[in-house]
């Protein structure tokens, strides 16, 4: 088993190496880079000359866009990354690791709460729908679940903002804090509640978008289990319906459920780019979108590698969990 995991980890490192090379190549191929964006106005007004721009580009390591130049700078990036140094973000003027660790927590908070809600709401709904297959409840819940997965996040956000922030005026429109309110320095509780109030809409949007997936997944797997022989045996023994459903059927549905839900855990750190941007929440997704639009290569590299590592970690965790929840499984 250990051999299996060592091999998996070695393979993951290989994949990550490939991913990093690909992303680096792609982001370096951007013809207008960060310096061009920043100096365009100064160039036009004559405050800077082409030589100044060129010097700046050399300083930022963006001057050599030839293939060998890209390989050389990629190797430099790789060696410093190995040492844990992701470089300086052009846009934010801080080390990339510092930006990541500063803004990751708000994103994680949003994602984690909506993840919990998704479990609390989705699983019971899925169980109920599967027990009453083809009932009105089943159809309604299934259609709503599908609608949740079909809604673009920016559209749902806009609808929410229109209804709850503008028409009803009960929730704040955007941002993380109320700009007009001034809190005393030690009013931690008030600040906390103010922030929580601002996060109600983003969390509801994310929950609505993802709850359908969990619900459908639960329903599908429950139906599979409910159709098996030992459930018939359990019913034939005269066990009560709740015992059959929750003790005999659901426990076996837990296997795929735990596997997939635990695989999602690392992804919670990745941030929700669109939702955070629409609601102007300064999370990691919002920062990444801005950095991407401006061509901030160290940040693009750092963020995307971070996301890839999360994906790889998620796959690894769900493999491990698969073995933990189902002792019959032996990985080799």
């Amino acid at each position: 088993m250990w051999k299996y995991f060592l091999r998996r980890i070695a393979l993951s490192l290989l994949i990550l190496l490939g991913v990093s090379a690909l992303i680096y190549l792609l982001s370096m191929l951007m013809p207008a880079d960060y310096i061009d964006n920043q100096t365009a106005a100064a160039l036009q007004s004559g405050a800077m000359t082409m030589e100044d721009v060129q010097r700046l580009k050399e300083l930022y390591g963006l001057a050599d866009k030839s293939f060998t130049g890209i390989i050389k700078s990629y190797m430099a990036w790789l060696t410093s990354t190995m040492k844990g140094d992701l470089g300086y973000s052009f846009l934010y003027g801080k080390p990339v690791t510092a930006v990541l660790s500063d803004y990751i927590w708000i994103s994680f908070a949003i994602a984690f709460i909506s993840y919990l809600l998704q479990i609390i709401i989705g699983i019971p709904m899925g169980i109920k729908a599967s027990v009453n297959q083809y009932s009105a409840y089943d159809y309604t819940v299934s259609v709503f679940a599908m609608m949740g997965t079909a809604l673009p996040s920016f559209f749902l956000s806009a609808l929410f903002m229109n209804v709850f922030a503008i028409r009803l005026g009960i929730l704040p429109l955007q941002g993380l804090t109320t700009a007009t309110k001034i809190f005393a320095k030690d009013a931690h509780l008030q600040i906390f509640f103010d922030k929580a109030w601002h996060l109600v809409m983003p969390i509801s949007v994310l929950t609505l978008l993802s709850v359908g997936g969990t619900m459908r997944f639960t329903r599908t797997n429950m139906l599979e289990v409910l159709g098996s022989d030992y459930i018939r045996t359990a019913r034939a023994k005269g066990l009560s319906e709740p015992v059959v459903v929750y003790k005999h059927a659901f426990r076996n549905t837990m296997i795929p459920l735990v596997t997939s839900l635990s695989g999602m855990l690392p992804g919670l750190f990745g941030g929700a780019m669109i939702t955070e941007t629409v609601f102007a929440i300064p999370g990691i997704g919002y920062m990444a979108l801005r950095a991407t639009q401006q061509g901030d290569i160290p940040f693009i590299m750092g963020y995307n590698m971070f996301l890839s590592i999360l994906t790889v970690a998620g796959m690894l965790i769900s493999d491990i969990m698969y073995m933990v929840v189902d002792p019959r499984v032996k990985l080799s």
Partner: protein
Amino acid sequence: MAVDKEKDIIINSNEENNDHAELAAAQHFKVISPGRMVAKRFFKSKLSIVGLAMIIFLFLFSFVGPLIVDATWGYKETQVFKIERNSDMITKAEFPGPDGKEYTYYDKSQTLVIFKAPPSAEHWLGTDTSGFDIFTRLMYGGRISLVISFIVIFLETVIGVILGGLAGYFGKWVDQLVMRIVDIFACLPGLPILLVLSATINSIESIPAEHRIYYLMAFLTLMGWTGTARIVRGQILMLREQEYMMAAETTGIRAFHRIFRHLVPNAMPQLIVTATLGLGGVILYESTLSYLGLGVPFPRAAWGSMIALADPSKGQEILANYPNMWVPAGLLIVIAVLGFSFIGDGLRDAFDPRMKR
């Protein structure tokens, strides 16, 4: 519904007898081809019919609609309409007067607005911030979304079938190589990379604006082919061990034909289902890119960029007062994605009733 339920119970509890019954029925009555069987099962499900109706509606709306508009009123998506109207703006403020009473101060101003006309008989959904007819733009936006999604899924399927087929059939180092490439692409964060790529295309000035859409399709394909490749490989790994493949091998059929004539067609049902379910995903990606201004460039219409008008960072006016500009586009996206997933689910159940969810 009740009838359906009963039938299902019979099938579940009495599968063997049912098979016999089906066989007997086939002998006594008529033989239905597998294709007909699939079609029959597909149309028996209400959801798949609803899905089909939604997609047919969208196709008519976005491909026939513009022709009708053009033939009857003679305008296209970028026709500017200047409809003059007076817009009253009333601001009010309350202040305490010198006599101690509360007074309310009204300031009424009138501005002449030529764009953003409200819905009317000529313009069913009004006009937008540039004076374009919204209803017509929805049709053209639908064209973009549907065309992009079908082309992207077609390309993804072709690439996936070729690479997945080779990997599954030859195994060994070919499999290793292809699957590692698949792993790398599957590990790329989808949206951020698409953003980088689209930003690249937008900043290259030598690429004409109308060609950007082709690059967009290529990028969407690049990010999405791995799923198909995995499915094809898995199916072929399973199928190639079966007897008919041994027969094909002993008769000396070329490897190319063995793969693409004998193996791939058997993986077809799964491929069709994945492709149908994938169409909605492509539409969502495309509209997200358009929303961020990285999709089809202005002045061409796209559903995503129509919703982007409501972005509150650019001012709340449209979000608050002009739902006619952005709500219909969002609803059409939902209809499209929902329609494709209904059809995909229906097809999956129809191809393989044992897989019924």
